[in-house]
C-alpha cells in the first residue's frame, strides 16, 4: 500500500494494480485512478512549475478545471503536453513528466525568475525591450519564447488516427451528475432519443464523492439503478469520456470522445479520439458547478487544494491528500470535506471559517473531531515545494493564529459552469444569494439545470434536472413519460462572499498564468479596467484551464478596486471549446493523402501502367507526361510528345473538363445570356468556342459548346471551374431567368473524353470509328460535332475541335469504356506512331497556338485583354455586358495578351518575370506587365511565352526587358503575336 492510500473505500479496483512512472520514478496505483489520484496516493505533492515565476505547484482540483497539475503524458511521437493529471486515467505503463522546469522539477533554474518578480509584473514587457530595436528578434524575444509555453509538443507526426461522426437526438444532456441523470430519466421515459455526455470515465458526477440519499436509498444504489434503467431504453445513449465543448448554430453541438486515451495506444483499426457533431432539438446543460478558490498569500503552495477535490480524492480514490488537513471556507459546503476526512480516519487540524456564524451541527462536529474552529481568514502559508507545513490565520478582530497541517482545503463557494450557455454571447447574470453568475441568454433550445443553474442542493438538482428533461422531451415532440421526480433533501447552503484576503506575499488569482491580486490592481491603475482589457493586459484566464478557477475571482477583485459591483464589472466573452481539444480530432481522417478526395480520370490506371507522372489539378490526378527510358528530364519527354503530335498523332485524356448537358426549348436563348457570343444560331451538329463573363465584366470561363439537337447543347468548361460554372448556370437558370425552359445536368463523369491530335488523326480515327462514318473534311468539317458509332458498336460523340492547333478531334465515350478507349487508341494508332501525351505537352501546344488558359484567365482580365473582344455580341444582353464597358476596363493602357520570345534563342523564359521597357531601371512606374505562361517550343526550337503587357498589341516587334529579380535573371524579349504556330489555322481546318 502506498503512503497516502487509504486502506478501504473508493471506486478503485484494488485487484488491478497499475505501474506508472512520473519524472522517471516508478509508482503504482489502481485501475480507476487518475494520474493525479495515484500521485496523491503516493504522497507526491510537487507536480509542476508555474508559467512565469516557475513556482512549485501541486494538485489543486480533481477535474478538467485544473490549472497546476499539467504534465507531459506519454513519450515520443505520442507526447501530449499540458495534459491535466486530474483527468488522465491511469493505465499500465503510463509515463508522465513534469514540464516547464530545468534541469528537474525539484531544482528548477528558472525559479530564479522569482527574484525578478518585482519587475515581472503584468504587462512589464510592453514597457521595455524596445532598445536597440534589433535586439528584440535577436535576443529578447528568443529568450522570452524559450521561457514561455509550458509543455513540449512531440515535434513528430501524430501516429494516431481520429475520426468524426454525426449524431441526431431529441435531447442532449451535458453531465451525468444527479441533474443530468434525472433529466435523462425524464426524457428517456417519454421515448425521446436521448444522449448524455459525461466527461469523466465514470458517470455520477458529484454523487460519486459526495454521496447522499435519493428516494430513500444510498446515492450509489440509486446511481446504479438509474444507469440500469437508462441502459434498458433503446434510444438512450450514455457516452462517458465525452465532453461537450461547443454549441453551434441550428442546434449543432460539438463533443469530443476520448475513445482510447485510457490505454497506452489505440488498438489496431481504432481511433484515438472521435469528434461528434450532435444535432439535438433540445439541450440540457447539467454540467454542474466548479468550486472556487479564495485568493490569499501563498495560496499556490503544493498541498493547498479545493475542498471538493480533497473529498474526491478521499472518497472516490481512497487517497489522502493530507493526513492532517485544515479547511478554509466561507460557506457551509466546505465542511463536507471535514466530514469526509474524519470519516476516512484522517485528522483535522482546524477549520478556518470566514463566516461570522457556523451551524450547531458543525460546531458539534468540531468538538467531536477535536479540532478548533477559527473565525477569520488564511493570510499566509508556510511551506515550500514539499507542501504546506504551517498556515497563518488572521482572526476576526485582528488577532493572528497558526495552524500546523500538511494540507489545506479551500472552499470559496461554487461557480455554475456558464460556458456552454454563454457561447452565443449570452451574458450570465449575477445572483447575490449564491454570490455567483448563473446562465442567462442561452442559445435557442438550450437550458441549464441543477448546479449549472445555481441550484446546489441535491434535491433541487434532481427536481430541476427531471423538470428540464420533461420539458425538453415535450418540446422535441414527445409526450409524458412515467415515473416521478427522484427525491432528496437539500443541504443547507450559506455563504459569505470572500474573494481576496489581503496579506504579504504573492496571492494568486490565475495560478497557471501567475496572475496575482496585485497585478489586477496594477492593471486598474494603468487604465485597463474593462474586464476584457484586464484579461488581455494580465493574461488572466487565458491559460489552458481557460480561467475556470480564476475568472470570477479576478473580476471580483477588479470590482473591489474600482468600487463597482461585480455585475457592473461584468464578465469577459466566453469562448469555446469548453475544454482544449486536440487539433487532430477536428481534422478526423482528413490528413496525409486523404486530406481531400482524389478524382481519377477514366484512363488513370492505364496511364499509371504507362509510367505517367501525375500532377494535381484541383482534386484531379492528371497525367502530366509519360517518361520513356533514357529520357533525361521532363523537358525531353514533353518535347518528344509535342513533336509526335505535330508530326503524327497523339492523344490525351481531357475528361477533367466540366461537361454539362443543356436541355430545353430555351437552351439556345439561355446560352446567349450566359456567353458573350451567340449560341441560339448555332446549327445542330456544330461546335462553337464560348466565353463567359462575370457580371462585373471580367472573363469567368471558356470552353466549346456543341449543339447535338435542336433542344440539346453539350457545354464544356475548364477543369478548374467545372463545379463553379455549374453553380453559376444553375443560378442563372433558377434565379435570374426562371421563365426559360432549360434543364442542366452535369455529365462530367459520364463521358471519358480524349483529344486526338496531329496530322494523322484522321488515319487513326478511321481505324476506330465505324467505316460508315464520313470523317472527311467535307463530311466532318472543322467545328463539326455529332454522335458516331465506333467499331464494335459503342456509341461516341465526336467533336472536331482543336486546342493544339493541329488537325484534331475530341471523342467522348461512356466513361467505363475510357480505359478500353485508351488501349484501343494505342492499338489503332500503332501504325502511325501514336503517342499519349500529358498536360505539359497540352500546355506547350496551346501556348504555341496562343490559346489562353488559367494563367491568362486570372479573374482580372477582360475579353479584350485576351484578344477576344470582338466576340462580344452587340445585339443581345448577356451577363457582364454592361460592366465590361466601364472606363477602366476599356482603357487604352490595359495589359493585354501578347506573345514573347527571347532575343537570345538559347535563353529560357520563366513565368512571373515582369516586363520593363528596354533601357529603364525597373520600378513601380515602369512595371508594364508580366509573363503568364512559358514553354520550350519544339516547333520554334526555343522558349516562347505569353505575357500581359500594357498596350501590348501596339508594340509587336518591340524589344523589352524581362525582369526576374526573384530568380536573379534579366534578359531581353521581343513582343510578338501570341499565335506562334500556324497563324492562319490551316492545319486545324485541313
Amino acid at each position, binding site marked *: 500500500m502506498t503512503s497516502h492510500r487509504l486502506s478501504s473505500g473508493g471506486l478503485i479496483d484494488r485487484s488491478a494494480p497499475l505501474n506508472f512512472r512520473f519524472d522517471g520514478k516508478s509508482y503504482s496505483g489502481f485501475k480507476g485512478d487518475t494520474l493525479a489520484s495515484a500521485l496523491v496516493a503516493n504522497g507526491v505533492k510537487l507536480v509542476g512549475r508555474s508559467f512565469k515565476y516557475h513556482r512549485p505547484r501541486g494538485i489543486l482540483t480533481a477535474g478538467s478545471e485544473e490549472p497546476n497539475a499539467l504534465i507531459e503524458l506519454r513519450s515520443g511521437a505520442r507526447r501530449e503536453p499540458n495534459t491535466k493529471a486530474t483527468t488522465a486515467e491511469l493505465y499500465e505503463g503510463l509515463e508522465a513528466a513534469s514540464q516547464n522546469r530545468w534541469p528537474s522539477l525539484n531544482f528548477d533554474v528558472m525559479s530564479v525568475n522569482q527574484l525578478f518578480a518585482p519587475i515581472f509584473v503584468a504587462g512589464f514587457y510592453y514597457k521595455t525591450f524596445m532598445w536597440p530595436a534589433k535586439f528584440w528578434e535577436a535576443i529578447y524575444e528568443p529568450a522570452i519564447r524559450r521561457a514561455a509555453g509550458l509543455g513540449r509538443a512531440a515535434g513528430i507526426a501524430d501516429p494516431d488516427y481520429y475520426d468524426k461522426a454525426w449524431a441526431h437526438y431529441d435531447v442532449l444532456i451535458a453531465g451525468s451528475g444527479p441533474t443530468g441523470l434525472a433529466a435523462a430519466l425524464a426524457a428517456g421515459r417519454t421515448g425521446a432519443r436521448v444522449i448524455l455526455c459525461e466527461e469523466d470515465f465514470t458517470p455520477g458526477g458529484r454523487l460519486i464523492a459526495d454521496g447522499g440519499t435519493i428516494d430513500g436509498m444510498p446515492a450509489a444504489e440509486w446511481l446504479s439503478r438509474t444507469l440500469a434503467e437508462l441502459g434498458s431504453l433503446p434510444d438512450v445513449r450514455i457516452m462517458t469520456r465525452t465532453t461537450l465543448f461547443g454549441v453551434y448554430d441550428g442546434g449543432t453541438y460539438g463533443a469530443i470522445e476520448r475513445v482510447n486515451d485510457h490505454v497506452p495506444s489505440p488498438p489496431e483499426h481504432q481511433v484515438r479520439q472521435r469528434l461528434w457533431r450532435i444535432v439535438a432539438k433540445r439541450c440540457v446543460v447539467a454540467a454542474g458547478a466548479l468550486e472556487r478558490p479564495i485568493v490569499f498569500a501563498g495560496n499556490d503552495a503544493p498541498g493547498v487544494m479545493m475542498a471538493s477535490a480533497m473529498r474526491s480524492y478521499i472518497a472516490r480514490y481512497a487517497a489522502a491528500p493530507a493526513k492532517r488537513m485544515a479547511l478554509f471556507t466561507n460557506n457551509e459546503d466546505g465542511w463536507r470535506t471535514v466530514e469526509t476526512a474524519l470519516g476516512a480516519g484522517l485528522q483535522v487540524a482546524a477549520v478556518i471559517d470566514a463566516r461570522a456564524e457556523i451551524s450547531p451541527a458543525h460546531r458539534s462536529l468540531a468538538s467531536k473531531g477535536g479540532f478548533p474552529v477559527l473565525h477569520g481568514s488564511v493570510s499566509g502559508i508556510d511551506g515550500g515545494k514539499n507542501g504546506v507545513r504551517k498556515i497563518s490565520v488572521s482572526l476576526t478582530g485582528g488577532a493572528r493564529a497558526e495552524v500546523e497541517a500538511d494540507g489545506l482545503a479551500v472552499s470559496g463557494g461554487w461557480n455554475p459552469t456558464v460556458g456552454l450557455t454563454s457561447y452565443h454571447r449570452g451574458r450570465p447574470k449575477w445572483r447575490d444569494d449564491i454570490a455567483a453568475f448563473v446562465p442567462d441568454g442561452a442559445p435557442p433550445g438550450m437550458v441549464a439545470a441543477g448546479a449549472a443553474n445555481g441550484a446546489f442542493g441535491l434535491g433541487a438538482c434532481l427536481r430541476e434536472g427531471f423538470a428540464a428533461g420533461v420539458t425538453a422531451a415535450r418540446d422535441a415532440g414527445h409526450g409524458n413519460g412515467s415515473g416521478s421526480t427522484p427525491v432528496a433533501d437539500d443541504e443547507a447552503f450559506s455563504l459569505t462572499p470572500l474573494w481576496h484576503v489581503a496579506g504579504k506575499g504573492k496571492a494568486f488569482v490565475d495560478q497557471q498564468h501567475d496572475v496575482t491580486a496585485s497585478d489586477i490592481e496594477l492593471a486598474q491603475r494603468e487604465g485597463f479596467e474593462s474586464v476584457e482589457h484586464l484579461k488581455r493586459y494580465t493574461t488572466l484566464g487565458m491559460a489552458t484551464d481557460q480561467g475556470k478557477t480564476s475568472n470570477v475571482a479576478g473580476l471580483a477583485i477588479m470590482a473591489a478596486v474600482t468600487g463597482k459591483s461585480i455585475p457592473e464589472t461584468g464578465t469577459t466573452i466566453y469562448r469555446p471549446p469548453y475544454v482544449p481539444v486536440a487539433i487532430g480530432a477536428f481534422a478526423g481522417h482528413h490528413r496525409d493523402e486523404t486530406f481531400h478526395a482524389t478524382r481519377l*480520370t477514366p484512363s488513370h490506371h492505364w496511364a499509371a501502367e504507362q509510367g505517367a507522372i501525375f500532377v494535381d489539378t484541383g482534386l484531379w490526378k492528371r497525367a502530366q507526361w509519360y517518361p520513356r527510358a533514357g529520357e533525361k528530364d521532363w523537358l525531353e519527354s514533353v518535347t518528344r510528345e509535342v513533336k509526335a503530335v505535330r508530326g503524327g498523332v497523339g492523344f490525351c485524356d481531357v475528361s477533367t473538363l466540366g461537361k454539362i448537358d443543356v*436541355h430545353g426549348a*430555351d437552351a439556345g436563348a439561355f446560352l446567349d445570356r450566359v456567353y458573350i457570343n451567340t449560341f441560339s444560331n448555332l446549327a445542330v451538329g456544330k461546335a462553337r468556342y464560348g466565353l463567359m463573363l462575370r457580371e462585373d465584366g471580367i472573363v469567368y470561363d471558356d470552353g466549346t459548346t456543341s449543339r447535338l439537337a435542336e433542344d*440539346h447543347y453539350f457545354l464544356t468548361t475548364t477543369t478548374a471551374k467545372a463545379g463553379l460554372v455549374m453553380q453559376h448556370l444553375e443560378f442563372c437558370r433558377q434565379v435570374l431567368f426562371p421563365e426559360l*425552359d432549360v*434543364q442542366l445536368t452535369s455529365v462530367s*463523369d*459520364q463521358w471519358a473524353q480524349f483529344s486526338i491530335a496531329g496530322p494523322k488523326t484522321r488515319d487513326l480515327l478511321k481505324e476506330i470509328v465505324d467505316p460508315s462514318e464520313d470523317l472527311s473534311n467535307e463530311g466532318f468539317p472543322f467545328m463539326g460535332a455529332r454522335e458516331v458509332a465506333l467499331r464494335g458498336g459503342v456509341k461516341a460523340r465526336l467533336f472536331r475541335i482543336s486546342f493544339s492547333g493541329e488537325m484534331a478531334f475530341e471523342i467522348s465515350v461512356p466513361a467505363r469504356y475510357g480505359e478500353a478507349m485508351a488501349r484501343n487508341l494505342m492499338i*489503332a494508332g500503332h501504325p502511325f506512331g501514336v503517342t499519349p501525351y500529358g498536360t505539359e505537352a497540352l500546355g506547350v501546344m496551346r501556348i504555341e497556338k496562343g490559346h489562353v488558359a488559367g494563367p491568362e484567365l486570372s479573374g482580372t482580365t477582360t475579353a479584350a485583354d485576351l484578344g477576344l473582344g470582338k466576340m462580344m455580341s452587340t445585339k443581345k444582353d448577356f451577363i457582364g455586358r454592361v460592366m465590361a464597358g466601364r472606363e477602366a476596363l476599356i482603357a487604352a493602357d490595359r495589359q493585354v495578351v501578347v506573345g514573347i520570345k527571347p532575343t537570345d534563342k538559347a535563353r529560357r523564359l520563366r513565368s512571373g518575370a515582369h516586363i520593363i521597357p528596354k533601357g529603364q531601371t525597373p520600378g513601380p512606374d515602369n512595371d508594364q506587365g508580366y509573363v503568364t505562361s512559358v514553354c520550350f517550343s519544339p516547333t520554334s526550337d526555343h522558349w516562347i511565352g505569353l505575357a500581359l503587357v500594357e498596350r501590348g498589341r501596339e508594340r509587336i516587334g518591340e524589344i523589352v526587358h524581362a525582369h526576374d529579380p526573384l530568380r536573379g535573371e534579366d534578359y531581353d524579349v521581343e513582343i510578338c503575336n501570341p499565335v506562334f504556330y500556324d497563324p492562319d489555322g490551316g492545319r486545324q481546318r485541313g
Partner: protein
Amino acid sequence: MAEFSWETRSPLDRALVAGPNGASGDAGVSLTEIRNFDLVQVMARRGKAAEMAEAAKARFGVAAPETPNAVGAADATLIWSGPDQFLALSTGGKHSIEALAPGFTGSASLSDQSHARVLISISGAKARTMLAKLSSIDLHPDVFGVGAAAATSMDHTSVTLWRGADRDGQAVFNLLVFATFAESLWHTILDSAAEYGVEIGHPEELA
C-alpha cells in the same frame, strides 16, 4: 484491321478486393459494388411536371417520387434526385436512355448517367453506425425508413443515398457515387468501417 476490345471497367475495378477487411471477427459491415445498370436522369421541362409524371406512370407503372424517396417498379427503381426530377435505375437496356426517350418527348429532358455513377451497397449490423461518420443526415430507422432517399454529400462529395429492402433483418443502404470520386470514397468508407470489421463481397450485377 486492328482488333480491340470494348471491355468496360468499373471505377472500382482496382480498389475493390473481395474478402475480409479491417478488424477481425464477425464483420459489422458488408460492402459490395452493384454493376451493370442503366441510370437515366429525368428532369421535367418547364411547366411539364404533370406531363412527366404521367409519362413516368405510363412507362414504369408507378408514380415517380415527388419527395425524397426511392420507388420500386416492376423492373426499375425510381429515385428522387431533386425537385421535379428523378433517376431511373434499371438493367438490361429495358429503360436505357434510348428506350425512355420517346415516352418523355416534350415532358422531360433525359441525360444518361449510367457511366457517371458507381453503385455501392452497404449493410450489416454496424452499417448505420459507420455511415454516421460519413453522412450528416439522420439515418435512424424511424426517420430514414425503407424507401427513403436523399440527395446529400459524403466527405464533401455529392451522393444519392437510399434505403433498399432489408436483408436478413438488417437495413441495406444503396449509395450512388460519382464515378471519378468512387475509388477515393471507397477507401474512405473502408477506413470508416475498419474498426467494425468489413466483409467485401464480389461485385454483383444489378438484379
